[in-house]
């Protein structure tokens, strides 16, 4: 559905170098700190910025060859941009109906009512949560094949976040050939939603893994100097020196649990995995 190969974009000292793909029927997450390059990827795919190399293919076409009709099959949420704040929800309904041939007006209106979004209030007067809900509802109502969602949950409380994630699950359930690329700097948002995750740091993809594998097979070993010396290091991905000895990231947690019963093995969170991938050294 989306293939990015060797995408390069330079801003001063920052260089994005990204290869990734989003398959039909899957929700792919992109996790990384602010400034890691997530928005740059989205803007490159959408042709909002020029690139310095690489290729982007959407629906098996080069991104720059996408027609208006192709673009109708893409629903978009951008972190820092939306419909003009001077418009109201009532204003944007006919705009969407005319821009997207498959705009599901009944669904949109039903969801607007469900999420208690005011129809006649200017969007610039909406709370952060209301704006975020409107953006996601808009993207989910155009009967898209691919959703590109850049930080759709930013600034939301836990309940609002859950509501939004529910909209996305509903979106995927309606058609198994749909796909979503969603980014967040809060990994917890994506853990329960995504089929696979890309971790990005300083413009580089540092890890790609299925979420299930990440949660079941990855772990952190907490070992002292002596234990570390006797450790089989074949399955260690990263190692970091700690006051007590070493913290080691592995993608074969069970192997160490079975063969080294004396060492502490923790199920690392995605945040801890990212931290290890970024700050740890190769074993």
């Amino acid at each position, binding site marked *: 559905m989306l293939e990015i190969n060797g995408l390069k974009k330079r801003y001063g000292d920052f260089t994005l170098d990204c290869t990734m793909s989003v398959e039909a029927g899957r929700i792919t997450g992109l996790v990384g700190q602010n400034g890691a390059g997530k928005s740059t990827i989205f*803007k490159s795919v*959408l*042709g*909002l*910025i*020029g690139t310095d190399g690489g290729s982007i293919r959407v629906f098996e076409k080069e991104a720059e060859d996408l027609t*208006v*009709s192709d*673009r*109708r099959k*893409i629903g*978009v949420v*951008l972190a*820092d*941009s*939306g*419909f*003009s*704040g*001077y*418009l*109201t929800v009532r*204003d*944007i309904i*006919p*705009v*969407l*109906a*005319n*821009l*997207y041939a498959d705009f599901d007006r009944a669904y949109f209106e039903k969801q607007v009512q469900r999420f208690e979004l005011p129809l006649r209030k200017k969007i*610039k007067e909406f709370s952060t949560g209301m704006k975020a809900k409107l953006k996601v509802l808009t993207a989910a109502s155009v009967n898209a094949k691919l959703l*590109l969602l850049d930080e759709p949950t930013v600034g939301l409380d836990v309940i609002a976040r859950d509501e939004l994630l529910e909209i996305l699950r509903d979106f995927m359930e309606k058609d198994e050939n749909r796909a979503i690329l969603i980014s967040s700097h809060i990994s917890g948002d994506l853990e329960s939603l995504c089929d696979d995750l890309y971790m990005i740091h300083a413009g580089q993809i540092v890890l790609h893994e299925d979420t299930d594998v990440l949660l079941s097979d990855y772990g952190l070993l907490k070992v002292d100097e002596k234990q570390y010396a006797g450790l089989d290091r074949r399955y260690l991905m990263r190692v970091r020196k700690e006051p007590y000895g070493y913290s080691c990231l592995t993608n074969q947690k069970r192997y160490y649990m079975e063969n080294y019963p004396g060492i502490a093995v923790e199920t690392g969170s995605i945040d801890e995995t990212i931290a290890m991938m970024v700050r740890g050294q190769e074993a």
Partner: protein
Amino acid sequence: MKGLLIKDIRLMKVQRSFFILIYAVGVGLALFTEDSTYAVGFPTFVISLFTVSTISYDEFDNGNAFLFSLPITRKGYVAEKYCLGILLGGSAWLLSSAVVLIAGTARGMGSAGDICLAAASVLPLMLLLLAVMLPVQLKFGAEKGRVAILIALACIILIGSAGIKTAEMLHIDIVALLDTMPVPGLGAVLAAALLTALLLLAVSAGISTAVMKRKQF
């Protein structure tokens, strides 16, 4: 394009009281001024320039990034702005011309033909105004755009003054020349002016498209 036009018309709702005020001033001018060109020109120019304000609304709060992620092209966006300008300016011109014609005839300000010619002289100027304002606004945005417009206006005034001075040096009285010109002759001049303005508008649209294609959001 229809979706974008609806968006802009909805955006202009924000300024509806200003719209009404402009029309009220236009009607006032039609009733109390002797100058038909000014009475038609004022509302036509001001209302056609509402197109420029929709560009500012689009740019507000980085809105362009989302706008250009919608199923539109940059060329289509530019085409919509020019269409909007012509629609707004054209409808304001039609309405104010009708008001001035009715008021002018009732007040005995001259023949209907004279009033129509005066009104028609506004049309190429309106197109010229759009041809200058739209690319400048798209290129420089609201803040820098104002400075650029002032510079452009200063240049136009300088060129105009230079033209008049040159005519004076050559002992040509332009006003007298136009006054002595028969109505059919004036009609031909206006038609030529209208065609030239349309041509310049087309060139301007090409420049605007090139400006938008280079923009990054």
